[in-house]
């Protein structure tokens, strides 16, 4: 194996990035439920309590609005808080603080105050986490000005993006899909950063474009590989950045293929796909050879039952079918 490349899990890579940044900058601290000695429900801080101590790896009570409010003040005062929500569903209890203060404070202070806060949490359907622990929620933060949102799908991006998010002076949501946490991938041993706001072309193709969000990326790549056997050449874009949207990369791809599918596990109405579709229709109307297609999870509360849970999210086969339909348009 190349000396500079190792294989890490998504969680290990993100944790390594967090540790590197905490080592580099003592103003960085983490708050969250069970992230202290326990190391986090999803092992996001495993081993870091021993390394950085209780003042920088800080357990909290179940009071999201309270600890987000305190972190807001800390960020205003120059610290760089990382709020670990465990399940992102719990961010809803801090929504007022986030939308009214975190997103707006730079504007309200005419830029005299910065808001270098990372809001991280696990999203998505999987593992029978049931309806209160399976949400995605990112369209809320795309809609609201003031936030950046990243949904990495590889260990490499998880580390590089978390480090950049921590260094950003804007509030950044760093969202990890539960089913990607154990994904293994190559990660350089040398420190590196990945830029916010950029989509990645994971697979090049000429016949149709799939823009995949987070966990849909590996499914889209697998679907494209299976369609290649029947002669279809599919381009897969890993969206990575939900806010801001990398419209340029998508338009460049659609200019080549003329056909666009947006695959997103989250609900369809007013979702990321709706926004991408509207932008492509507005700025790339003459590029389109078919209506923009969307593939989303079912518009229902997420069930606990494993078979039902399987049924409400788009499968690899569903991506294949959506692509076949798109190619037939």
């Amino acid at each position, binding site marked *: 194996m190349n000396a500079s490349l190792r294989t890490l899990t998504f969680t290990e890579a993100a944790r390594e990035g967090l540790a590197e940044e905490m080592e580099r900058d003592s103003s960085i601290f983490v708050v969250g439920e069970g992230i202290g000695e326990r190391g986090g429900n999803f092992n996001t801080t495993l081993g870091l309590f021993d390394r950085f101590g209780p003042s920088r790896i800080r357990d909290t009570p179940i009071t999201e609005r309270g600890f987000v409010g305190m972190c807001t003040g800390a960020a205003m005062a120059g610290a760089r808080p990382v709020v670990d929500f465990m399940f992102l569903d719990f961010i809803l209890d801090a929504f007022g603080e986030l939308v009214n203060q975190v997103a707006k404070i730079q504007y309200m202070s005419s830029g005299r105050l910065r808001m270098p806060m990372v809001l991280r949490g696990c999203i998505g359907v999987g593992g029978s986490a049931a309806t209160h622990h399976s949400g995605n929620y990112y369209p809320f933060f795309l809609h609201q000005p003031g936030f950046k949102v990243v949904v990495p799908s590889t260990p490499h991006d998880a580390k590089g993006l978390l480090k950049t998010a921590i260094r950003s002076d804007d509030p950044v949501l760093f969202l990890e899909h539960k089913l990607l946490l154990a994904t293994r991938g190559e990660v350089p041993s040398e420190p590196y950063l990945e830029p916010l706001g950029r989509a990645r072309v994971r697979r090049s193709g000429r016949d149709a474009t799939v823009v995949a969000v987070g966990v849909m990326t590996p499914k889209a790549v697998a679907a494209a590989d299976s369609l290649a056997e029947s002669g279809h050449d599919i381009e897969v874009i890993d969206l990575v950045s939900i806010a801001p949207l990398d419209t340029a990369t998508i338009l460049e791809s659609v200019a080549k293929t*003329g056909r666009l599918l947006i695959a997103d596990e989250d609900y369809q109405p007013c979702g990321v796909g709706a926004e991408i579709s509207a932008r492509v229709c507005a700025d790339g109307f003459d590029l389109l050879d078919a209506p923009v297609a969307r593939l989303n999870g079912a518009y229902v509360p997420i069930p606990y039952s494993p078979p039902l849970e399987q049924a409400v999210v788009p499968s690899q086969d569903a991506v294949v079918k959506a692509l076949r339909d798109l190619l037939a348009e």
Partner: protein
Amino acid sequence: MAVEVVMPRLGWTATEGVLKEWLMPSGASVKPGDVLFAVEGDKAVEEIESLDGGILHIPPDAPQPGDTVPVGQLLAYILEDGEEPPTGPSDRASTQQVVIQADIPALGAVSTVADRSSADHVRPAISPRARKTALELGVDWTGLQGSGRTGRIVERDIRAAAAAHTSGILSISPVARRLARELGVGMDVLAKAFPNVRITVDMVQQLGAAAKPQEDAIPFTPTRRTIAANLTQSLARSAPVTLTTELNATELVRLRDHLKADDRADVPTYNDLFLKISAHALLDHPVMNATVLEDGVRMNEQVDIGLAVHTDRGLLVPVVRHVHQKNLGQIHADTTDLIARAQTGRLKGLDMQGSTFTLTNLGAMGVDHFTPILPVGHTAILGLGRITVKPMVLDEARQDIGVGHAMALSLVFDHKAVDGAPAAEFLQRIRQFAERPYLWLTL
């Protein structure tokens, strides 16, 4: 008994048509008057209705939507309940009963169907990308059948059409090909304008000015493109010669003055008078009423005269049917209706097909003589010039000079089909009828 459904003939010169789409699925129960399928003609898509009732059966090996199909070819059967589709060779005798509208324009029954056709189905759906590609490649997509799921024309259809048209050209010189590329003249445009000949630089230049995409160019509308393609095709296929004459229209003017003085509500126009005059002159000289085919002419018993009408959308030529059987009042009623519908965009494709002769009038705009282009397949077209008051010899025998109404006439004829002398005799006959209207009083 199984009734055959075949490709109808849309217009006199049509030898084939494009089966656009089936509007009834195979196996459907159809009644007389139900719209079965759509056929694409020159300027419009016509929806064809069934004259019979029964179960529609479209054989698997029948022509598919998008196919160009010879007139009369079997498309489907209409079966009785439980009847097996025939397997033997088709029975052409029954065919004619099902071929519907094109040859019976006088029937008013098809109007609602055709209205819908011209309103909704003239232009197929096309993706934005395909539209852009068509513009780039110079492909006229209005006649294409799309391969998209809902029949939408998509990019691959445009590229296939461009490739097909290119290969349809028997040959093109390298210089001409390069010039065509420089001028932005599509291979399909060339193939359509000059079928079955080697494309030369001259031909490319002829189309080049119109096709050259310029920043400030106003793109042709589909109607304009059809006009351009038809006229160019006509020039490529005919050998037009123009004869001009000036006649004494004093009696014609007087005739209209008398009719006006009689408080008639509907005074025939000069167009109406010349429709009448032309019809009787054509009966006397039937060779001028013939349709010119690839390698022969077809004589037409009926006199159906196209009347050129200038509209916002361009030149439209609705057809006055059976002019030779109508009196001036009927002709006037026909032209009033056709002109009104031409101006308001309510003409059907059918209204503009099947003329055997054409009349065009620039007199109102101060033109004396001009050389109109023959409609494709026409032997002749008559151009009416202006009527002016001028000094003239009123009576040659008595050398009587006075003031009268002079009118200019231009006759363009296809020298391929007819020689100069018979054409001149025909023009002479028109002149006699115009100068002495009582000659056709009893006709």
